[in-house]
């Protein structure tokens, strides 16, 4: 048995991916902890921007939602939603953003809207929130989600947020999307990246103790695998200490 949880592995992978980044758009839960871990390790200058309009938050407790009042008190700035979407996100100020999804396809397109027919849904999901625009405007997108066959699907039932679309070269650019789209998918079993030419997801790094077959079993399409497939380095003792002692002491998100 590993001495860390799958959630902790996801947090650590996400944090490491933020090395050197400066402005990240963050949701609560795992991405929040990952960004805070990155600030204390690989990205000391990282600025966390919350979708609720908060910058430079100094939360006195682990926030319960992106609108938690603890994010506001002691922040460096708080702005209305129109400023957030117009001047920060559309204005090109966001370098990295995290997105989750109920369904993802091989090009990193995401569905958070509906399972089944839109007008007669089997399961009604939350919808876009800011995700549709984040996927267009953030310079890079990191996706965090658990690896499950019903999530990694051949064909989305609804496209809420654009990834690399159908994989045609320059397709995002020709549609007028400033951001470069999804760069990584961090899961509890492996990390995926995207081929620069085809836009297709490939297995880039596999977590310790997981086999390629176990990963393929949870992905609905024949998965491409990196020639130099890595084994994800496990969380370091210092990373685990920061998560457990400082960032999520009650284990709300990490157990």
């Amino acid at each position, binding site marked *: 048995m590993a001495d860390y949880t799958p959630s902790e592995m996801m947090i650590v992978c996400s944090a490491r991916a933020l090395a050197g980044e400066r402005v990240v758009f963050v949701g609560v839960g795992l991405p929040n902890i990952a960004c805070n871990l990155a600030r204390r390790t690989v990205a000391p200058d990282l600025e966390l921007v919350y979708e609720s309009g908060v910058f430079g938050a100094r939360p006195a407790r682990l926030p319960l939602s992106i609108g938690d009042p603890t994010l506001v008190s002691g922040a460096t700035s708080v702005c209305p939603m129109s400023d957030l979407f117009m001047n920060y996100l559309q204005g090109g100020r966001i370098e990295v953003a995290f997105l989750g999804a109920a369904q993802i396809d091989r090009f990193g397109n995401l569905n958070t809207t509906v399972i089944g027919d839109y007008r007669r849904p089997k399961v009604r999901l939350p919808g876009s929130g800011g995700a549709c625009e984040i996927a267009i405007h953030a310079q890079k997108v990191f996706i965090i989600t658990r690896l499950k066959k019903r999530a990694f699907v051949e064909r989305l039932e609804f496209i809420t947020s654009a990834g690399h679309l159908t994989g045609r070269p320059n*397709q995002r650019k020709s549609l007028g*999307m400033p951001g470069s789209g999804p760069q990584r998918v961090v899961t509890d079993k492996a990390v995926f990246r995207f081929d620069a030419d085809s836009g297709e997801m490939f297995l880039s790094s596999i977590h310790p103790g997981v086999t390629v077959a176990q990963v393929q079993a949870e992905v609905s399409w024949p998965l491409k695998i990196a020639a130099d497939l890595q084994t994800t380095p496990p969380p370091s003792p210092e990373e685990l200490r920061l998560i457990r002692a400082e960032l999520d002491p009650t284990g709300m998100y990490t157990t």
Partner: protein
Amino acid sequence: MKITAMRNAVTRYVHDGDTVAIEGFTAFIGFAAAHEIIRQGRQNLTLCRMTPDLIYDQMIAAGCARKLIFSYLGNPGVGSLHCIRRAIEKNIPRPLEIEEYSHFGMVGRYTAGAARLPFFPLKSYLGVDINRANPRIQFVTSPYSDENIAVVPPLNPDVAVIHAQRADANGNTQLWGLLGVQKEAAFAAEHVIVVVEEIVDEAVIRSDPNRTVIPHVVVDAVVHQPFGAHPSYVQGYYDRDNKFYQEWDKISRDAGQTQAWLDEWVFGVDDWTGYLQKLETREPEIRTRLAPGQALSRPVNYGLYGREGA
């Protein structure tokens, strides 16, 4: 003097069939107004809100709405909005028409509504199905670059309800914390009900005019309703009652339990004072549990400029 009781404000400004926006992103959610609307039995409302949250889950469970205009359906930090899902997936208690945008799309709709623009442009809805599901999202061509850019139409509610920390008796309203789209919703609406934790002297407002988010010019009624955003929060006044948000996740999974909750907590009381009494009977220490510590802003000097022709 626009101060009035919630009952009167709702009777006067919220009518069957109206388009209603109760705004406030995660914070300042006007539950006191929502409960009064439910209690007065309003029907066929078109409810607008970026994040319908528990407030519209309750109103939709109570059968107030025929339509929902929104951008994110969730119980923040907890999970699904089960009543709204039940309405959309199973037509319970009645069918619910939906008109769906992204957050930025909703911001754009309110912005266009406030500014009486025929549309608001935003770089969104590229390569996705949202605009296919919602034909009100259109595209126009820029005369400068031939770029096609999405546009959304104005949203002009019949009435907006805005919860805030304080206002004067005339309706000049100050907010701090998350500002969401309250200003835009208020300017876009035909009528505005402001609900506040405190009515303050005009001198308090005048000591910091940049803090006034909603000016009296657009306000029809001011309702003094402390703790009126419970179980959501008001920055500096009380915390979110997260226990209730979690409890609602259980209650709302079942239509019968939901109805029982509405019977007890909405229909079973006369007004918000009755709701608060019940709340404090159940948990005498609730206000202490939700009370934040003090974190005061440093004052700024606006300056007295009384001398002629300095």
